[in-house]
């Protein structure tokens, strides 16, 4: 797990299901600390990562300004499962796609960008 070969960069990482340490309480509370199982580095605390927001398809660069600004600023901001991008800044320094429930903070999928379908 610790070393990452060039081949693994493009390998499809199987979805990692993180078993939560503390069950989300009935008030819809979060875990005390978020643990992300990095496909390259293993389970790490969230403060090793940079949160980069929900995954939004990027328009082509020659699009009109209104579309570009919509891409820059508008967000779905849904409550529940959300597909988002994180950067493992203090680890493998790879971008990750993560599916996280932003009400309970459960994580059901972590994959390197390019490793899964996006």
């Amino acid at each position, binding site marked *: 797990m610790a070393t990452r070969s060039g081949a693994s960069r493009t390998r499809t990482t199987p979805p990692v299901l993180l078993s939560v340490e503390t069950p989300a309480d009935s008030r819809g509370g979060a875990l*005390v600390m978020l643990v992300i199982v990095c496909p390259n580095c293993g389970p790490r605390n969230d403060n090793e990562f940079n949160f980069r*927001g929900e995954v939004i398809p990027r328009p082509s660069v020659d699009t009109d300004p209104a579309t570009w600004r919509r891409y820059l600023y508008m967000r779905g901001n849904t409550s529940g499962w959300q597909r988002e991008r994180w950067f493992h800044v203090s680890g493998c320094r790879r971008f990750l796609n993560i599916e996280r429930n932003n009400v309970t903070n459960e994580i059901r999928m972590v994959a390197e960008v390019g490793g899964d379908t996006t």
Partner: protein
Amino acid sequence: MTRRPRFSAWKLITHGLSRSPWPKVWEQHELASTYDVVIVGGGVHGLATAYYLARNHGITNVAVVEKSYIGSGGSGRNTAIVRSNYLTVEGSRFYDRSVKLYERLASDLNFNVMFEQRGHMTLAHSDSSLRTMRWRAEVNKLQGIDSAVISPAEIKELAPFLDTSDHPRYPILGALWHPPGGIVRHDAVVWGYARAAAALGVHIHQETELVGIDVKSDRVVGVQTSRGPISTSTVINCTAGWSSLIAAMAGVSLPITTRPLQAAVTEPVKLFLHPVIVSGSLHTYVSQTVRGELVFGATVDPFTSYATRGTLEFTTDLAGHMLELMPAIGNMRLLRQWAGLCDMTPDYGPIIGPTAVDGFYVDVGWGTYGFKAGPVAGESVAAMIADGKPGDLIGPFGLDRFERGTLTAEKGAAAVGH
């Protein structure tokens, strides 16, 4: 319209002596089938909007729908700090009006909101933040706002418990001093507005959740609530935390991400800290309530979430930073911590104004500074509904600024500063 019982020192004495029960503060109403205006969210913004609609514009057929109890969201979770020393002209002008409204709110509402203008001190720990403070002070002075940069010696005089020596890792180099800033009792502001609005005929519906907004050919025609439908032509989204979800009901998307902001409070001790102390570099701020508790706040959590539970990381960071500022409080114990949801916008400015759907207005995106803007936002939104267009004070904060690319750049003074 019911006559509202007045509160006064005389009433307090007579009720105290006779032990007679106090009259009900406001009446509960059945949900009517039609309202002129439906306000979503029973926090300080929603209730202030309802109050100013009724008082300033005579629009009293208004319903405030709140999914829980009034003041249960951001209005009851903030750290109750009021100030107007913002970085931009638009920002400082807007919040200055809010401070002015807070100054006479208690007599306006006939309700003691316990507003104390103890002064607001933003510490600088680096040359660059000192530079920004000089800039802010000059912008503020031009708007007629009392704001100045002060030296560590003057800081020591105003807050003797602060460590102004050069021993800390981030020594205090100066501060932005803003005497009109202070703290207020946030629950009282909510209750005062609710009581005053209800006395003018506004219906406040608690435990009434909005579940849908009916839109026909780009016009609002009604709303669906957990207690039944309401037909209306005007809906104002005054929610925080859930504003994107409410707007999505009308098919409107917002440039908002929701993040929790955590706060904590210590056990009460004898009053020793008069001003409100803010440190942007240490991501923290502190004030002492009249009960003697120290109220701590922080910056927003590092990732978006709708969860409002505290984290251990927050507590340890907070304790470390507070001890660096005030080593003397090392033996104090934290009583509790909590989190509130903050709707962050890309430029740290709020979003107030009409949307692409006719009759659907927003008063959202208040980030970490919504409470201090409650009165002015209510007043401005009420005027916008009555006049049909946003006034000068809120003109720069329209939703269309994100499509035009004319953002407000308030991050420098709003990101952490409270």
